């Protein structure tokens, strides 16, 4: 996938000094200029059609909806990238997402005094999501995510799924009946 920007990319990657200055926020996702960056995983995602803060919130929200401790943040970032792309040409989508995040942040501030993405614990954030799970915003994000997260070929090995097999000759000689623990 090419949706993530490598930290080494000259025009967008923040310097180490900038990174250090940004440390302190909860989680590994930070904003640097027009990008969401994850120094721990060494990637950045340029965001120009949405507010970068909105994309950061979407990525946190994505993990809260489908939390897999074995999956790195970048898979959630890749899954949410279509909102950045789509916002360029679809004003209704952009409004749905920006306003949805405002709602999330408003609820989070009322309860915890900080925006959604900075609420410290998953359980607290999930409680906020439960309040909006019937909303069009949540439904849109969850419905898209269940495809855009689990349809990434790079995540399949994490779940032990081997993907396409025809070009490898199927499983006739590759363990279709190799179960040994029964």
């Amino acid at each position, binding site marked *: 996938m090419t949706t993530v920007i490598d930290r080494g990319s000259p025009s967008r990657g923040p310097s180490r000094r900038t990174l250090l200055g940004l440390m302190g926020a909860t989680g590994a996702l930070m904003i640097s200029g027009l990008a969401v960056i994850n120094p721990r995983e060494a990637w950045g995602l340029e965001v120009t059609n949405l507010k970068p803060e909105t994309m950061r919130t979407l990525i946190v929200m994505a993990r809260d909806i489908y*939390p897999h401790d074995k999956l790195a943040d970048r898979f959630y970032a890749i899954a949410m990238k279509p909102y950045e792309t789509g916002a360029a040409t679809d004003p209704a989508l952009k409004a749905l997402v920006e306003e949805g995040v405002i709602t999330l942040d408003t609820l989070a501030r009322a309860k915890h005094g900080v925006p959604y993405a900075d609420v410290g614990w998953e359980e607290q954030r999930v409680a906020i999501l439960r309040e909006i799970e019937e909303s069009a915003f949540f439904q849109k994000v969850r419905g898209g995510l269940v495809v855009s997260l689990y349809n990434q070929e790079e995540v399949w090995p994490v*779940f032990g799924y081997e993907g396409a097999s*025809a070009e490898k000759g199927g499983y006739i000689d590759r363990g279709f009946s190799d179960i040994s623990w029964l």
Partner: protein
Amino acid sequence: MAAPFDLNDDSVVVIVGSGAGGGTLGTELALKGVKVVILEAGKRHNMEDFVNNEWESFAQLAWTDMRTTSGSWRVHKNFPNLPAWIVKSVGGSTVHWAGASLRFQEHEFKTRATYGDIDGANLLDWPITLAELEPYYAKAEDRMGVTRTNGIPGLPGNNNFKVFEAGAKKIGYTEVSTGRMAINSQPRHDRGSCQQIGFCFQGCKSGAKWSTLIAEIPRGEATGNLEVRPESMVLKIEHDASGKATGVVYVDKDGKTQRQKARIVAVAGNSIESPRLLLNSASTMFPDGLANSSGEVGRNYMRHMTGSVYGIFEKPVHMYRGTTMAGIVRDEAGHDDKRGFVGGYEMETLSLGVPFMAAFLNPGGWGRSFTSAMDGYVNTAGLWIVGEDMPQETNRVTLNTEVKDKNGLPVANVHFDDHPNDIAMRNHAYRQGAAMYEAVGAVRTLPTPPYPSTHNLGTNRMSEKPRDGVVNKHGQTHDIPNLFVSDGSQFTTGGAENPTLTIVALAIRQADFIAGEMSRNTI
């Protein structure tokens, strides 16, 4: 004149759809020397073009033209515009099917007599019996190469089957095997044997699985009597002043409207599109749609009682390796109302890849309950339950005049509510499926709700009396002698068995009838 045939050739049989019903009927008629034009809405793909990727394949093969839904079924909430997971492609849903090929049981042809008067159910006995269909079942099994018939050995069991089989035996089931499958366990009829690829639902890339696309239509075409026109969407069946069908109007691959004349028209567009076509063909003479004097066109929509059960174990299963439907338990298939419901159900192994597992495990679900189940994917075994559901007059396909397709015609709305008998049977099946997996050490079992329907049945049902249904025992409409229905929409009731073998048997039987009537000049 050999194929291709002229639009004005009114001696041809026009068949709408190329799946189990239409593809078989067209081929069988062509083999008998009858000239046939099959109009297929979808494209023609070769088996090399099929994709071992669930969503990509879905985009290639699935019927995703707009449809709407209503009713209390969960599909309406989670997949409001996808009532059915079926195929728009030459070969129809035989490209997608898993291959399970089971005969109906004797009592399933006479459910009204056997089950009695069930409140809310519009039960009716078929106008044919098992004995009448048996010779055609035998022909169908032979041409499809069904395992465990005609001396063909069963397929080997994969990991998913081994877990399923061990669990089934542990709780006392005895009728457990790798089933009767239209998948070659050894080379037969110029097709090779199963390579245990998996992805049976995505189109078999080795050709081991029978489909009309690879196993029927080419044989028909080789006679010179069969022409298949892909990307040809039929809009309307036309008739003359005497009420006889004269041909069909369709949009061809270039978007041009065409009119193909016909001596006989046979509708085989699956149980949603077939009634839609009859209803959209309404005329001054037939204001409620063609063949609809009974008012039964579109009614009694059945989708089988379905659901799935998954068991998560401590150790790996790799359920996705090998045939998708790798085995069956038939112990619950009979009728025994001591269980609290009439009719019966089959349990068949089933596996999904990670993308579809996520989509279908618990549609709309999220959070750690959901993701912990996904985390157990490689240790998961899965089965599908398929049982007889009750026909109900209110479960029906209607025209949604609020929503039009690209040709300006109303789309189909599919309304469905479970009958209490369906719910009782499903709950029983969920418990039995879970018990099987728990018996061999499942640490967690999950019932999952029905997917968008793969078995769509009953919307143009067979009946003895014209007032009770749409077609007679030959699939000939009661109202119009040269108009036939050739797909699963003919089913009077659904049985517990996967429907394809019965659709094929009925199509072979119908071909005999049509050819006979044509030679006697009675049609």
